[in-house]
């Protein structure tokens, strides 16, 4: 019985509803174009290809899957040397949770631990014609944001007593489709909540986002870039917005700032936007109207995939802790003179 290609076998058997399956029954949704042909009729499960889409939830033995992944990735670093890494790397790209890490015992492909973000860079005032511009990169994900405005006049449907914000998302390649429209809508709503809309009524501010590189965590990178560009343009803001992406694996462990490969393997991931932590000259212990500190608010939350409620709140806590570090980085980069 010749075995030609993984896909055709799968289709053929599901069509015939054969009782005995050659394939591993716990890998139901194979990728359509699978380059890897299956070995001839093994009862044991074949090794899943490394870049399979998020079907990890269906695997019979999840920890075994993770172990296999570890073999391919860099060799496991002992806890002691990881401790050494902590002190070397600069503070804003490193957060660590020792107990959590030992419990998870998961290594990521690029050697980061679960709470570690990729190196951040932010540069402002790059574009000559734009009134404000910023370029934000997290590892290989690079986004360039340009702000024009405020310009006179709003679009027909919008409230003339407020400023309106229009967002144009330009992908790196390809035509503009539904995904881009969704990003535009999310970005517009997020920016509307941080801008002071009543300070320039009946004007339009345009934010144009150009994706330069996409390696996971694209929407948070774009939100950070747009916020920095708005500050560069001098648009009045209530506070800054800091965005982060968290991935939730099926074991319940949370990783921050996943790459594209990691995002596809995760059971669920979410984009979270928090307000930044402000400096205040309020006296210590002043019981203002807010019972909770300002940073406990949340501006936007976009989730992909199904996750348990506990997992969602877990991600929220981790994301909030990480947003403090990003907010500090944003503050320092805004204080440097742009040139």
């Amino acid at each position, binding site marked *: 019985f010749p075995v030609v290609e993984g896909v055709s076998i799968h289709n053929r058997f599901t069509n015939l509803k054969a009782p005995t399956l050659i394939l591993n029954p716990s890998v139901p949704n194979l990728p359509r174009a699978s380059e890897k042909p299956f070995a001839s009729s093994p009862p044991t499960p074949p090794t899943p290809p490394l870049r399979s889409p998020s079907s990890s939830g269906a695997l019979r033995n999840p920890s075994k899957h993770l172990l296999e992944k570890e073999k391919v990735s860099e060799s496991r670093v002992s806890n002691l040397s990881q401790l050494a890494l902590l002190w070397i790397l600069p503070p804003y790209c490193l957060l660590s949770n020792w107990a959590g890490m030992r419990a998870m015992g998961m290594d990521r492909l690029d050697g980061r631990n679960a709470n570690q973000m990729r190196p951040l860079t932010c540069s402002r005032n790059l574009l000559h014609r734009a009134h404000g511009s910023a370029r934000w990169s997290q590892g290989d994900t690079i986004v360039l944001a340009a702000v024009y405005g*405020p310009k006179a006049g709003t679009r027909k449907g919008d409230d003339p007593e407020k400023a309106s914000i229009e967002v144009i998302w330009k992908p790196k390649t390809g035509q503009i489709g539904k995904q881009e429209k969704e990003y535009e809508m999310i970005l517009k709503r997020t920016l509307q909540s941080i801008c002071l809309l009543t300070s320039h009524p*009946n004007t339009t501010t345009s934010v144009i986002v150009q994706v330069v590189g996409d390696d996971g965590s694209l929407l948070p990178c774009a939100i950070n870039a747009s916020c920095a560009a708005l500050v560069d343009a001098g648009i009045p803001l209530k506070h800054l917005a800091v965005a982060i992406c968290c991935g939730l694996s099926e074991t319940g462990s949370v990783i921050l700032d996943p790459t594209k490969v990691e995002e596809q393997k995760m059971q669920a991931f979410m984009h979270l936007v928090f307000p930044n932590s402000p*400096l*205040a*000259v*309020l006296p210590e212990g002043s019981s203002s109207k807010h019972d909770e500190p300002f940073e406990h608010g949340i501006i936007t939350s976009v989730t992909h995939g199904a996750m348990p409620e506990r997992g969602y709140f877990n991600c929220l806590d981790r994301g909030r802790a990480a947003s403090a570090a990003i907010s500090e980085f944003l503050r320092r980069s805004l*204080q440097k003179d742009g040139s």
Partner: protein
Amino acid sequence: MDTPTNLVDKPVVPGDVVLDLSTMANQTIKLGAGLRQDCDTISAMKAGKLRLSKPNKYWIESSQKRYVPCVEDTVLGIVVDTKPDNFLVDIKGPNLAFLPVLAFEGGTRRNIPKFEIGTLIYARVVKANSIMNPELSCTDAGGKAAEFGPLKDGYMFETSTGLARMLLSSPMCPVLEALGKKLSFETAVGLNGRVWVNASSPSNVILVSNAIMRSEFLSGTQQRIMVEKLMDRLQ
């Protein structure tokens, strides 16, 4: 996080609370650009340095490419359209500004000036709030012309508002002083980030414009050195 007691002369970002009004009773505080009142606190809207002019004036100093119109600012505008009652002038702000047709020295219905579209005008902002279009005037408060009006010849270029403020600061900014020692030229600086330069020969105009454009992020001595280098190349 340690709470700073005083943020004056320190860099702030939007959202920072710079003043707590509950501790200051019976005081009048004047707020300038970039600050807003939020119940009992004053917080920043823009990123920049917080400045205080004693006794009670606070503002945020920042430099942008766009201009926020303020009363009594002198700006350089470009005529965009003409209407029976006023000229529509672009001053790099969120709205177009109106320059009334009669707002010139000795202006009556009989001698209305004729400006083409694209004329550069040096004017003073008379009314400015966020809701309405700002209003300009080509006379000073006493009704005299005082150098306001259209600017002919020369070359206009755009800068940031921070550089325009530096050029207008007193004592005179080092780059203009150094240029003035060797060359003769005239400039008009608009607080909205436009600078007009006129000199006897085009090469002088280019030299002065380049010197001004490059001086934004240089210190005083660096500006003088840069001007000297440009002069050496000319001779």
